[in-house]
C-alpha cells in the first residue's frame, strides 16, 4: 500500500468526487484506530468489523456533508465510528450524521495552544492524563464514551444524583484538557 501525500481533508474532498482510491487511502490510514475504538466499545470482533465497514460506507455516502472548518477528517471519521457503536450498543437505528453536523457547531478556535497539543499527543499521553483524573470522573467518562451508557444509567449504576454525573463528565473533560495541555507545554496543572 503506497502512502498518499494528500491530507485526510483532501481525501474526503476526493471521495465526494467518487474517488475509490481516496477511500482506500483513508481506510488504510485510519482502519486500526477506527477498528480499535469499535472493538473496545462493542467487545466483539464481528460487531466491530460491521461498524468499521458501515462507518466507511457512511463516509462514502456522506462525504459531501463534511465541513473541514468544523472538525478534522480523523475526528469526523472517529465520531461516525463512535455513533455507530453507540447505536449498536443501545440497539437503535443508526443516525446518518455525527452530532457535530447536526448542531452546526464550528470547531473551537484552533489558534490557541490546543492545535499544537493535539498534533503531538500519543495514546500514552492521553492514558496518563486519564489516569490522573479523580477516579469517579475517569470512570464516568469511560462508562459514557466507551460503554455507551447514558448519564441517567450511570447515575443509577453509581447510585449518585444525575447532577453529580453531569458534573463529573463536564469537569472531568475540562480537567483532562488542562492535563493534556500541561503534558505538551510543560505547564503545571492544578
Amino acid at each position, binding site marked *: 500500500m503506497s502512502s498518499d501525500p494528500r491530507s485526510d481533508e483532501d481525501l474526503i474532498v476526493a471521495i465526494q468526487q*467518487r474517488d475509490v482510491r481516496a477511500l482506500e487511502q483513508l481506510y488504510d490510514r485510519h*482502519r486500526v484506530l477506527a477498528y480499535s475504538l469499535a472493538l473496545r466499545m462493542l*467487545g466483539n470482533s464481528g460487531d466491530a468489523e460491521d461498524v468499521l465497514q458501515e462507518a466507511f460506507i457512511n463516509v462514502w455516502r456522506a462525504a459531501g456533508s463534511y465541513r473541514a472548518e468544523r472538525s478534522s477528517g480523523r475526528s469526523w471519521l472517529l465520531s461516525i465510528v463512535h455513533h455507530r457503536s453507540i447505536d449498536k450498543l443501545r440497539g437503535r437505528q443508526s443516525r446518518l450524521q455525527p452530532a457535530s453536523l447536526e448542531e452546526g457547531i464550528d470547531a473551537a478556535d484552533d489558534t490557541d495552544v490546543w492545535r499544537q497539543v493535539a498534533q503531538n499527543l500519543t*495514546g500514552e499521553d*492521553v492514558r496518563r492524563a486519564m489516569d490522573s483524573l479523580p477516579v469517579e470522573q475517569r470512570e464516568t467518562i469511560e462508562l459514557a464514551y466507551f460503554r455507551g451508557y447514558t448519564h441517567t444509567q450511570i447515575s443509577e449504576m453509581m447510585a449518585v444524583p444525575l447532577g453529580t454525573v*453531569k458534573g463529573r*463528565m*463536564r469537569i472531568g473533560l475540562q480537567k483532562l484538557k488542562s492535563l493534556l495541555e500541561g503534558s505538551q507545554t510543560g505547564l503545571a496543572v492544578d
Partner: protein
Amino acid sequence: MSEQDHDTDLTGAYVLDALSPEERDAFVSHLQGCATCRAEVAELRRVVDVLPLTCDLIEPRDSVRNRLLNAVRDEPTGRPTVATSRDRIVRPPWWTGVRVRTAVLGVAAAAAIAALAVSNLNLRQNVQDEKKTVAALQATARFQSEVSAALVAGASVSRVPGTAAAPTASAAMVQPPHSATAYLIVRGLRPTPASKVYQIWLLRGNAAPRSAQVFRYSGIGPKIVPLPMATSGWHEAAVTLEKAPRGARGPTTTPVLAGNLRA
C-alpha cells in the same frame, strides 16, 4: 430551554453522547440559540476527539477492506474516478505472490509445480494467521469486557502493563469495593514453561515484596487470577517467572508485568 435557563452541565453529557434521544434533540435546539453552550461544546469535543487514542491498537482483518470496497463499488453512485481492472477486482492479500508465481508456469512445468506448492503453503499460512488474529481479537475483547464490568461494579482498576521482557502482555489489577480480596486479569503472556509458575508480587516502599499468588498461563485468552488479599496499602504490583510449584520467597527474575496501583 432558553439561553437564560441553560444547563451547562449538559455539555459534557452531550459531547460524550450520554443523553437520551429526547434530551439530545432538546439540547441541540438549545444550542442553536446559546453561544455559551456552543462554545463549551466545541471546547469539550476536542478533548473527546482524542479519547480513542487510549485504545489498544488492533489491526482489522483484511477481509473487512475487501468487503468495504465491494460494497462501495456496488453503490448506485459508486463510480470510481479512475476505473481500472484493479479497482473492479478485489484480490486477497496473497494475490501478488500468486501472480508472480503464475508467470513462472509458462517457463517450466517443474518450476510451476514448485510455485503452486509454495502458493498452497502461503494460503495455509494465511488461514492460520487469520485464526491467530481472530483468537487475539477475541482475547482482547474479553479482557476489555472483564475490565469494563469491574469498572461498572465500582471496582478500582489499575493497569499493570507488560515490561520490555514481555511487551505484548498486559494486565489489570481489580480491587472490588469493600472486598478483602482482589484479582488480576492477565493476557498476552507467554505460556508458562513446565517447571515454572508466574508469581504475583505486591510492593510498598522499601518493604520486602509480598508474594500474592502463583499461577500458570496457557498463552490463550485472558485469565483471571484471584488474590487472597486486598491490594489496599500496596503501591505496585509485579509478575515474575519463578520455579514451580510454589514460586520463590522473593523475585529472582526480571518482571514481565509491572505497574502502580491506585490508592
